[in-house]
């Protein structure tokens, strides 16, 4: 449909579209079904803001289409034009065999393993030859087959056929046919869930407002945890942005929570929780900080598809299962089956989804399937029922239209009902069944699975929120029942949609406002934020003349986001000023300091910052043990190393400017010459400034393009150097012999690291943990110390002795002393100090490369200034 339907063109019984207001004296006034002006609600923030910090456990995203669909070009060609998807059944079955070999072939595998030869060599002619087969050949055949996949002329290799023919029946632990059936069923189920997951209908988020209106407090009921099987009751304070107060009351359930429904009866909230095979009910006393009390749990054999809580009687709920059974569940008297009918009501539809809700009469329940709604009297369910809504001509339905979510609108009008389909939303009056009193085509991209009603006071419009799951869409509608007096002869009135439906922020929408992330972070964040929506709740808050609306949205990842809408008092229809503001790409008012805020950044931005930090902590934690040990970069270089040149030189500026200009023109730079006359000078200037620094030397050479030459020079140069270094080392070894034990276990990752990075020109990330610690001379490094490194004797023995003693006196453990010393020396040395590579250290190590001695050779051993030692 289109939103462009100020008034619904009539069907057979659409009735009057424009209704004259009849009063005896005045001219009849015509009122449109859609009033032009409704209340104006404007978003307070540019995006939805997280309410709670993300939970610690990692979140496993639900499967994506590419996980289960068969993808190949041939397939796509065949499918072009046709709808329907091909499930990659073979791949999944393959995964199963690989992931669970024990379950797949356990016992026979063990029996037969002698008869399968897995090596590459040819089988020797022995006795075993007759009873052993070579598997590699088979694997090769399979690979070949895989490579020819999609080839129209493919035929099975005879060997494979022979093998599968032989062992299809007995090799598998579970009979293959059965296994395949189960897997296929599961796959089809997963796929249909991906297309449309109706188990989330109703949403798993509830807001329980507090009884007393003094304090703006309420309680958010939401699922959480890795498997979404924890139920939380979180007190939330509604200030400028809602924030949690105190720890939540928490219940661990045995299954994933699909739906949380709540209703208030007699000042107490009753919260129903539905998971696939269990439903439970909690009672939350109206007082703030009262503890929620679990009342009862029921178990179903077939997955439950609906749970609603009665707004009339305490402890009454209605439950539907996918087998087509509807129960009235009372905590006191138990379950009463109202209907059992696996068939759909009005015409045949395959969906097992059922729904049920309460009506104006506490004993009359509505029950729904995809084809429509009926009302049943619980006192005589077989006899007393009537049709409330039917997908068909009366409501002017489209072909293929199906009921998605019915909801009782009792808090707005006792006899009204909301029915949403994938195309439209209808408001029905149970006194005038079948013919909707309001219809509007919502044009949402995904069917609205969640709805929330906020009743307006008499004379004001009621607000309905519709939410979709997969696309996270959120719409705000306003309608008014009885827009002309009901008192005029007790006539029923149609409803009027007021104002234009309004789109609200989705959770993903905030992504563009967040600070730029590293690409993989961005991807993770995107995945997290675009998880399907799983629930919707809202509350109206009136603070004197200021009215605002708070809307909470839950995502499948367990995040709860919130946005505030502010009511703008009736103004002359202002020119659409929002037009431009909202369209500006990547505008991020969220992170700009609002003028009014005293903290510089808005509270929303701060909230985001905290949330992001918690999220990145959660990401980092779980794979901790799997990460390669990382080393701080800070200690690899002296800070002079890290210090760049003071600013871009004029040449750099020139080059940059040229580059920019060329990019703007869309041209390309073929030669740098005209501007940058000699490219090598650039590093050379650096070299001049930085002194004889091997790294700069090498980079300069590389820049100039004669890196080979440099290498040659270096190696030949180093032969002589090495000899010298070796000689010196021997000399020093002799000298140091007596004192080695003192500092034997001091480790210096410094030397090794910086040297190596010099060699490999790659950062420390290259240092895989698998690499053996370099040639420790003194046995293994002390346990608990960072992985590595042999120890060299201290460069200045006397000082070292002194300092290690003094360090010991201060109670600094042995292992740390050297580190500390190095650290201090680095900082004490001040800027004009060559990289800290005492020759004595370097020469002690037998480096895999020949150039390690370079620095030692080029610099005479010298004392390092040490602060206070």
């Amino acid at each position: 449909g289109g939103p462009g339907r100020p008034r619904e063109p009539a069907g057979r019984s659409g009735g009057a579209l424009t209704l004259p207001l009849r009063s005896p004296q005045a001219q009849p006034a015509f009122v449109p079904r859609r009033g032009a002006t409704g209340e104006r609600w404007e978003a307070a923030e540019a995006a939805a803001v997280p309410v709670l910090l993300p939970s610690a456990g990692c979140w496993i995203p639900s499967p994506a289409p590419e996980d289960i669909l068969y993808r190949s070009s041939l397939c796509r060609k065949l499918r072009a034009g046709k709808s329907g998807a091909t499930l990659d059944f073979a791949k999944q079955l393959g995964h199963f065999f690989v992931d669970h070999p024990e379950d797949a072939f356990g016992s026979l595998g063990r029996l037969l393993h002698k008869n399968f030869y897995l090596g590459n060599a040819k089988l020797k002619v022995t006795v075993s030859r007759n009873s052993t087969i070579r598997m590699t050949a088979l694997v090769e055949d399979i690979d070949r087959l895989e490579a020819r996949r999609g080839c129209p002329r493919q035929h099975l290799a005879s060997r494979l056929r022979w093998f599968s023919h032989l062992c299809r029946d007995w090799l598998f632990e579970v009979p293959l046919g059965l296994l395949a059936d189960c897997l296929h069923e599961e796959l089809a189920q997963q796929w249909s869930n991906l297309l449309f997951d109706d188990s989330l209908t109703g949403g798993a988020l509830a807001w329980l407002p507090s009884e007393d209106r003094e304090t703006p407090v309420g309680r958010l009921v939401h699922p959480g945890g890795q498997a979404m099987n924890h139920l939380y009751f979180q007190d939330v304070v509604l200030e400028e942005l809602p924030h949690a107060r105190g720890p939540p009351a928490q219940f661990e359930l045995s299954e994933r929570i699909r739906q949380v429904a709540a209703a208030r009866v007699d000042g107490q909230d009753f919260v129903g929780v539905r998971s696939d095979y269990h439903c439970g009910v909690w009672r939350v006393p109206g007082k703030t900080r009262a503890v929620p009390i679990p009342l009862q749990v029921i178990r179903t054999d077939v997955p439950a598809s609906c749970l609603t809580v009665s707004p009339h009687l305490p402890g009454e709920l209605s439950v539907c299962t996918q087998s087509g059974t509807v129960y009235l569940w009372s905590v006191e008297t138990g379950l009463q089956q109202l209907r059992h009918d696996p068939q759909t009501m009005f015409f045949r539809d395959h969906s097992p989804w059922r729904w049920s809700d309460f009506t104006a009469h506490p004993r009359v329940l509505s029950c729904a399937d995809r084809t429509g709604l009926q009302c049943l009297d619980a006192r005589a369910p077989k006899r007393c029922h009537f049709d409330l809504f039917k997908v068909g001509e009366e409501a002017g339905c489209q072909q293929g239209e199906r009921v998605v979510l019915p909801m009782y609108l009792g808090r707005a009008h006792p006899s009204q009902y909301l029915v949403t389909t994938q195309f439209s939303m209808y408001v029905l009056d149970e006194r005038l069944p079948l013919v909707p009193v309001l219809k509007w085509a919502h044009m949402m991209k995904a069917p609205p699975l969640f709805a929330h009603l906020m009743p307006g006071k008499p004379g004001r419009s009621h607000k309905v929120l519709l939410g979709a799951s997969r696309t996270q869409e959120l719409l705000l509608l306003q309608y008014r029942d009885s827009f002309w007096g009901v008192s005029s002869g007790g006539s029923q009135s149609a409803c009027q949609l007021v104002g234009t439906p309004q789109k609200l922020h989705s959770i993903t929408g905030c992504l563009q406002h967040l600070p730029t992330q590293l690409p993989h972070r961005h991807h993770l964040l995107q995945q997290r934020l675009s998880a399907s929506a799983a629930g919707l709740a809202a509350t109206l808050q009136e603070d004197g003349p200021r009215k605002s609306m708070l809307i909470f949205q839950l995502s499948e990842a367990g995040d709860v986001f919130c946005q505030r809408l502010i009511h703008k008092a009736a103004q002359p229809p202002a020119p659409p000023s929002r037009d431009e503001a909202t369209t500006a790409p990547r505008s991020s008012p969220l992170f700009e300091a609002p003028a009014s805020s005293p903290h510089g950044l808005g509270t929303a931005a701060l909230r985001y910052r905290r949330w992001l930090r918690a999220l990145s902590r959660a990401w980092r934690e779980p794979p901790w043990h799997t990460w390669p040990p990382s080393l701080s970069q800070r200690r690899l270089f002296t800070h002079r190393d890290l210090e760049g040149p003071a600013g871009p030189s004029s040449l750099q500026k020139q080059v940059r400017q040229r580059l920019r200009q060329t990019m703007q023109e869309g041209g390309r730079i073929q030669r740098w010459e005209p501007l940058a006359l000699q490219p090598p000078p650039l590093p050379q200037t650096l070299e001049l400034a930085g002194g004889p620094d091997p790294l700069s030397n090498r980079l300069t050479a590389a820049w100039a393009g004669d890196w080979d030459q440099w290498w040659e020079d270096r190696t030949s140069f180093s032969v002589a150097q090495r000899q010298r270094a070796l000689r010196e080392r021997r000399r020093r070894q002799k000298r140091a012999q007596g004192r080695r034990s003192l500092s034997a276990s001091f480790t210096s990752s410094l030397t090794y690291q910086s040297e190596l990075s010099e060699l490999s020109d790659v950062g420390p990330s290259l240092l895989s943990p698998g690499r053996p610690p370099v040639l420790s001379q003194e046995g293994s490094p002390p346990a608990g110390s960072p992985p590595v490194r042999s120890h060299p004797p201290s460069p200045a023995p006397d000082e070292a002795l002194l300092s290690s003693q003094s360090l010991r006196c201060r109670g600094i453990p042995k292992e740390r002393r050297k580190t500390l010393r190095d650290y201090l020396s680095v900082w004490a040395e001040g800027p004009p100090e060559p990289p800290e590579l005492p020759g004595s250290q370097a020469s002690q190590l037998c480096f895999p490369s020949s150039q390690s001695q370079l620095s030692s050779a080029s610099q005479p051993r010298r004392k390092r200034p040490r602060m206070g030692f």
Partner: protein
Amino acid sequence: SSNELKLNFKKSKEACLSYIQDALLQKQWKRAAEFLTCYVESLEKDYSREHIGPSEMIWRIGTEILWHHSQNRMKEFSCFMEQMKTLGVKRYLKVCLEHVFHLLCNGQIDEAYQNLSLAESWRFGEQTAIQDKEIKLIQAYRGLLDYCSWSKQKKILLEHGEDGFADLAVEQEMHGYFRKAAVNLKEIIKIPGVWDVFVKCYVDLLEFYGEHNEARQVLNEYAYNSKFPANPNAHVYLYQFLKRQGESKKSLISALKILHDIVPSHELMIDFNTMLQKSKKRKKRQLGLEVIFAALDYAGWKENAKAWSCLARQVKQIVISEKHLDWIKQEWNSRKDWWPDFHFSRYLAKRNWQENKSLSYEKALVAGILLGKDCKYFKYVSHQGCKARLKRFRILKKFVTRHNPVYLRISG
């Protein structure tokens, strides 16, 4: 290939549509209009076999944008509508109707009438026959406008008539309107549907000219024809007509009885109950009790003091006369498992006492009789009433205590 081209075209069309939608839902009319001009291209290759084709989309979206953005510049709107009419002959009359509605809502009754007449005379081969429904509606609306003119003339006539100065010309003109309106209105209400406005106007016309039988027939048909959707309003109109005609109690009751069967929670049930209570017949009085009990089942009636006082009065009568306690017992049987929680909880006692003392008085009386003097609701309210030294609450307490055995008989 052409297939691919089609696919791409479709994709970009969809993308464009979703941009428009986005803009519309954020009230960015100007932006939506810009996208719409791009979308117009989709008319060129209209391969779609969807429910709503591009031309219909353009019509609907365009209407929406103009409705909100052009600040009632009717000229622009009419111009757009004319274009839309020529864009799709299949929808010609629908667009006409839409246009007329727009004019009506802006108070341009005469233009609307002109447009309706034009649309009515539209002929386009087969299309005219296909759009039969729309033609009927157009005629009906023309009838409605004729009725409006008629009632305007009537007003003039009545005002002048008081001066003893009847204008023949006005009367004739008025009669002309009547005939035109009656013909068209009569047609539309033959088709099954919800035609409340048209029926009311038609009946008004008929009544003015004294054709009561015809009016009665129309209303009966509208209320009782099973082809029409069950419409409580139809019964209400019939009841009101009968009342105006001064019909007998019996026929009024039978009309309301049917309304009670369809919608037990209708506002008229209080009138019905009062009517039945006054009746001499026992059966009727029993029905009265049934009616008021049934009405109070509904959530919408929970705090209706009038209804509670009706029930209280009747229950009190029965208890005092001690005659038909079985009536109460019968009604109470199907309700005793849920009414206490639904109506007579302690929470409600508190709230009713705070908000509406007379409601709590009536309810306490009913609760005391149905549930005995120990019931929470009665206890709370009578206690509060005595504390506040309200005389009638003391009398109430005495009454209930005296008749406490009744409770045992009812619930037994």
